[in-house]
């Protein structure tokens, strides 16, 4: 195995990381989210998700399967790099499609340690970069340590520090710093697998250092390049 030890800018590294995860066109998966509180008590949430890869920002649809009282609730989001996302929530008990004001993305997703911002696909245009990535050794393995700063003033973070594998350019860990510039959370990425030649993430473990809570998110039965189109992400699908 040849390890790339040449110096690389933070921006170029982000581009390479983005490139190895791109090209899936669309994805369908089941998601299992395990919420673990400071006392170790666990709660599980399950969802079905669909994502459409788009140049200007992905489209995604998520349907909640558990807890039972929110079963059938759907969340539709159109990401935009240059303006606020478009978001709608379908509330099955009321048969209502409700528009969501999406300016703030730092809120907790379903009471988990993930924010809406954490769950959107990585997009290099959403961050500022400067300087070169640092070469570090973690548990005997060489890694790139890279710093990026969110452009949006509505981001919940002032800085993100990512550890990237130099051979695959896959992100292995990210530290998130809050608005007070203190370490808030650490995400550990694992169970990467190649589906139709594209790297896909299998598991993220998010640890909140300020409240000692943890959330584990696992993707199951993921398929890509399913032939999904914009029509599969129009508002009409919310009521189906």
């Amino acid at each position, binding site marked *: 195995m040849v390890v790339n030890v040449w110096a690389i800018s933070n921006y170029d590294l982000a581009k390479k990381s983005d490139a190895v995860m791109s090209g899936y066109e669309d994805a369908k998966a089941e998601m299992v989210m395990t919420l673990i509180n400071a006392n170790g008590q666990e709660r599980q949430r399950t969802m079905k998700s669909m994502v459409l890869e788009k140049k200007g920002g992905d489209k995604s649809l998520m349907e909640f399967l558990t807890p039972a009282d929110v079963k059938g609730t759907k969340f539709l989001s159109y990401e935009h790099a240059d303006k606020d996302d478009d978001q709608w929530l379908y509330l099955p008990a009321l048969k209502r499609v409700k528009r969501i004001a999406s300016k703030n993305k730092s809120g907790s997703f379903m009471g988990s340690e993930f924010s809406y911002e954490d769950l959107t696909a990585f997009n290099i245009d959403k961050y500022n970069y400067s300087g070169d990535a640092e070469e570090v050794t973690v548990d005997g393995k060489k890694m790139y340590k890279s710093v990026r700063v969110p452009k949006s003033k509505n981001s919940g973070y002032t800085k993100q520090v990512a550890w990237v594998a130099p051979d695959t350019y896959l992100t292995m860990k990210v530290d998130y710093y809050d608005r007070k510039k203190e370490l808030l959370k650490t995400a550990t990425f694992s169970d990467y697998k190649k589906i139709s030649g594209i790297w896909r993430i299998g598991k993220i473990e998010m640890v909140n250092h300020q409240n000692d809570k943890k959330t584990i998110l696992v993707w199951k039965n993921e398929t890509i390049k399913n032939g999904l189109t914009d029509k599969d992400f129009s508002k*009409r699908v919310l009521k189906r």
Partner: protein
Amino acid sequence: MRPLLGLALLSSLLYSGEFEYKGYVGADTQAYLSKPDGKHPGNLTLQQQLELKYSEGDFEAALNLYAQEDSYDLYRDKAVHNDRSFIRLDELYGKYYFENDMLFGGRNIRFWGALEVNNIVDTFNTKDFRTDALDPQKQGAWNVAYTHYFENSELSVIVKLYEEKQEMAAYPYVYYFFPKQIPVAGVGLTDATYDANRESEESLYRPTVYLSYSGSTESDYPIDYALVLQHGFDSQRAFSTVVDPLARTTIFKERLYLANKVSTYNTMVVGSTLLKLEGLITDVIDDNVTSVRKRVADYYQFGLGVEHTLTGLIGDADLGLLAEYYYYDTFDHSDAIADDLALFQIFQNDLFLGFRYTFNDVADSSILAGAIVDWQYHEQSYTFKYETRFFDVLSVKADYAYINPSKTDPTAYALMGFNANDPLADPSPHQRVGLNLSYHF
């Protein structure tokens, strides 16, 4: 208990099937801290809802049943029964999706609206006041529909095939709006009752046609918009009274009439703020004045709303600030016109101010609280609702409500607080605490 037992049996059978299902069984209880003499001091109601869905390719079918049993209806003494026990078919339909079109046939519930507290334009389904009159459920309506989908919008033609009853619980249920007795000139005091059978010069099977166009813009300030044209029975109901001098009874009946209506509901996103508008204009076609009743006039209604969300105030919590204003008026104010009070309109010139505090915790806990001030009839109502979940399957809702009814006009809340033992006294204020526990499956 028959309605609940039947639904429970059906639920247990479906555990062995391959249908997609969901629902709940629950207990709903209220204690009324202030109420008129003679009305029940509280209620305990068992509830069950069951929803089944079947999908095969582009075909989808659904069944949605609701049942409840009020403890007073189990008493031997029929005088305390409040007629709040029933099983109701809310949805039974089939849908077929084509490439850009959809055909629908059956019974269902639709939602039209943008506001949070009172949806003026949500007129498709009739309400069922036997559940909780402060938050009434909607009942399904039989209809057929065709929808064509465009890129960012959709056009639907909907034909409602039957006009449903507007069910109401009986006295001595606290939310029975009619007085127990009414004085009638030349007869004296008569026993007053509500009869849900509708009075209409047209067949109840006369179709009501809706043409609906809705969509979203992709601008810097995106808008969700909708326009609905309607011809047929109006959702507003007039009331007729039938007096039987020999039996000394007065029976209230709903009277249906035909109308043309234009409705719109819209939401605009400006940063963290949602701006909302609902409005309608109704042209009443055939309600004629007679010697014993007043005519329903053409009318208009609108509602304006603002919802601004503040995030991260305390930990992960969000605070949504809500302000909504509602207005109702007729185009004709002559003496021959049935006014808003006679039509049981609740929101004539009302302002709602409130907030929704979302904890964003693992139990999806939230608080919704607010006050409604009726500037026209000087009424105030205050509500506080807390919702949370235990063990992922048990939802808990607690609420408090206080209504100070009009002392000058016979509004619905003033009639509800009418004290038969002291007819000259001001109507009783209404105050309640409620608790709902539901097991979801």
